[in-house]
């Protein structure tokens, strides 16, 4: 996953699971089949915007920290 700068497997899994749960990642992957890299970057940007983080499209430490905070289980982006 080139979107992950440091390539930490655990971080990849954290971000993937988070985007799957709250940003509809898996459904859109199946429906439109765009490049996984692009889709993840787009979802990460969406998430960073909502949380007022620097919008990089990358799973930087700030983003991962926000992902690990206690939260509501309702998705942030959902049809």
């Amino acid at each position, binding site marked *: 996953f080139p979107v992950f700068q440091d390539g930490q497997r655990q971080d990849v899994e954290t971000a993937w699971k988070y985007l799957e749960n*709250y940003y509809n990642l898996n459904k859109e992957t199946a429906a439109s089949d765009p490049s996984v890299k692009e889709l993840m970057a787009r979802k990460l940007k969406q998430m960073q915007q*909502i*949380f007022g983080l620097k919008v990089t499209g990358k799973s930087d430490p700030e983003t991962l920290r926000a992902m690990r905070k*206690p939260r*509501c*289980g309702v998705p*942030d982006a959902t049809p």
Partner: protein
Amino acid sequence: YAITYDNPRWTKTNLTYSILNYTPYLSRAVVEESIEKAFQVWSSVTPLTFSRVYDEEGDIELAFYRGDHDDNNPFDGPNYSLAHAFQPGPRIGGDVHFDLDERWTDTSENFNLFYVATHELGHSLGLTHSSDIGALMFPSYTWYTDDFVLNQDDINRIQALYGPSPNPVQPTGATTPQPCDSDLTFDAITTFRGEVMFFKGRFYIRVARFLPEPELNLIGILWPNLPGKLDAAYEASIIDEVRFFKGNRVWAVRTQSVLRGFPVDIQSFFGFPSSVTHIDAAVSEEYSEKTYFFVDDMYWRYDERRRSMDPGYPKLISEGFPGVGNKVDDVFEKNGYFYFFRETTQYRFNLQTKRVDAIRDSNTWFNC
């Protein structure tokens, strides 16, 4: 406003609710009171009313579940995912599920049931998450203080769905500060390890050389034990502490910890007379290690090394700091200047010449 796709909303205004079970961490009475209070938050700003039913299914059912509970949204044990709710509709629509594995509280300790219930009921009524970090509907858990005020963003969004409350006195909510708002004033300002931090309500605005834009966040993210609406703050850099003031109490902070033994009263810690019950502004001059406290139209001087008040004080602000007025709201030191703030104006006071040499708007620090 961002409202759930297709704007689902309740078409009737008299809604019922039922509580199916309880958490072992709180008494039944506390759970019931927390949930009733949560409903009141929403009924106070809309025409909606909520009444509890006992022997039938309410429009909104509230329950505690552990792990997989057959709604395709399994809980995950302690922490992380705390609760979820369903948009307005029949059967499961509007229902609220709390994770039974969380340690639910009725205090500022994690996780406050009233706060989470109020958030989830926002979903039950048709709201999505908000990107306003001060809003109740922000996705992360952000409860750090005992005083709860609904954010104006939440009020605007729920009233876009249901209209305002018929009550002649319309409640207003707290608003999240916007750094570039020219009317913005501050509760307190201090330097903090080379950065400058501005405080307003429950929020801080952080300015650092390496940040292109100021960072806005909740004070509680850094220091969960600090109250909001601070009066004053200053950095005692010689001991790497920042001290925060509210009323007659002071908190000392080093990095991300409030030091043990705090808060204490300012009379016993600094030696103020009992007539001094608050501090408007404070700043510590780095080279002299003298701290100035501004109270109404007077200022006091404290010696950080000797840990005692200097004799001969208080003095008039207008005499010691000519040009800054009779009263100040905030002050901090940077590069040989004291920056005084009064309402939306800042005064740059040169510590060498003892004169004000620039007067500007207060938000010039935010690259607006």
